[in-house]
């Protein structure tokens, strides 16, 4: 299998549909026509490469130069691998999140919760040669939204990953183990297979937790693997 082989199609049920009845904003933004399946060419099999030299990392978003953010300090560590379990090395991960009170440092966020001048809410990390990443942050608060009556987003951190090809581009959200809001959240519950949703939950890890400093959470991400089975070859001929 070459490093420009096509990527596997998604496992059924593992990705959301575009039109999700319980998530109101999809109603006018989901395509109504069937998607057209295309064979992955060089355009989809290759993708951008980001280097820390040009895209500097910011691995501690729990503080700024003038001081420490309010809230529960956390360490998040995990691996980025492909569907064959191989590490995805030196890939860029972008992160963004609400502050500990559930407020984004964003002009569109009108939630009546305090801003924190020491929390900007975005970071950038790179995986190492083993696909491992790690950053320090503040546990984000839950926040209300208007999807339905009494709608609150569970605590979450937004993730943006690239991987080796444009076809591996992934935007997702990391949730926290034990959050009582998960069962009410239309975005978390947009996954057809509940197991796919459960994989978005970071687990508390006492071994990652640092005494007198921060709680540790572990969150692994899997990107599409390069397919080499007869099944994928058949797709390629469409």
């Amino acid at each position, binding site marked *: 299998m070459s490093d420009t082989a096509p990527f596997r199609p998604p496992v059924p049920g593992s990705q959301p549909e575009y039109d999700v009845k319980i998530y109101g904003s999809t109603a006018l*933004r989901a395509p109504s026509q069937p998607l057209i399946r295309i064979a992955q060419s*060089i355009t989809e099999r290759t*993708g951008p490469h980001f280097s820390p030299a040009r895209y500097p990392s910011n691995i501690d978003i729990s503080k700024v130069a003038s001081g420490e953010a309010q809230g529960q300090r956390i360490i998040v560590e995990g691996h980025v691998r492909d569907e064959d379990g191989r590490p995805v090395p030196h890939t860029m991960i972008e992160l963004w999140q609400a502050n500990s009170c559930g407020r984004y440092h964003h002009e569109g966020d009108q939630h009546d919760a305090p801003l924190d001048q020491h929390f900007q809410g975005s970071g950038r990390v790179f995986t190492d040669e083993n696909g491992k990443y790690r950053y320090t942050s503040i546990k984000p608060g839950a926040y209300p939204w208007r999807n339905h009556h009494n709608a609150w987003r569970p605590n979450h951190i937004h993730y943006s990953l690239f991987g080796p090809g444009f076809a591996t581009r992934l*935007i997702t959200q990391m949730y926290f183990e034990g959050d009582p809001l998960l069962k009410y959240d239309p975005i*978390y519950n947009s996954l057809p297979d509940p197991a*796919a949703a459960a994989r978005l939950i970071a687990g508390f890890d006492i071994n990652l937790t640092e005494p007198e400093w921060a709680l540790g959470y572990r969150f692994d991400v899997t990107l599409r693997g390069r397919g080499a089975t007869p099944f994928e070859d058949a797709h390629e001929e469409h």
Partner: protein
Amino acid sequence: MPIATASQTIGPYWHLLRDDTWSDLTRFGATGDVITLQGRITDGAGNLITDACVEIWQSSPPVSDVFDGFGRAASNAEGLFSFKTLRPEPVPGASGPMGNTRQAPHIALTILARGVTKALWTRIYFQGDAGHDEDPVLSLIPPARRNTLIAHQTKPGVWHLDIALQGASETVFFEI
């Protein structure tokens, strides 16, 4: 076997990542046939989409020290996105039963937004380029919808393509 992590919407607050310099793919010194690529994004009711994250990736010209091939732009209050980049050349197509194919110049484009659960994949082609009739991707699209992928020149060097997420003029989106 591990299964790929699920996509979740980019939401309304992705602008915390925003860096408008990323919309200029020539910012590291790339030279060549510089173009502006722009368009307006609308939803199924014709409303402007003012909170989208639009990303482009092109496999031509090839990536180099001065050309990333990747760009990101926010749609603005008028629903408009705009990139400055280099005009692509034809590239090889995917291999298949038809033998080696060639693709007309194109740029891959994804739309990420609140209410969009996973990236919407499309492409931009350029009106008047050779090879559209033989292009292996355009050939898959019913002729009546092909024009949703073909940008037109509004003035020298400025190419425009509107994108409709839903409705009568809905853009063709791909499953890749």
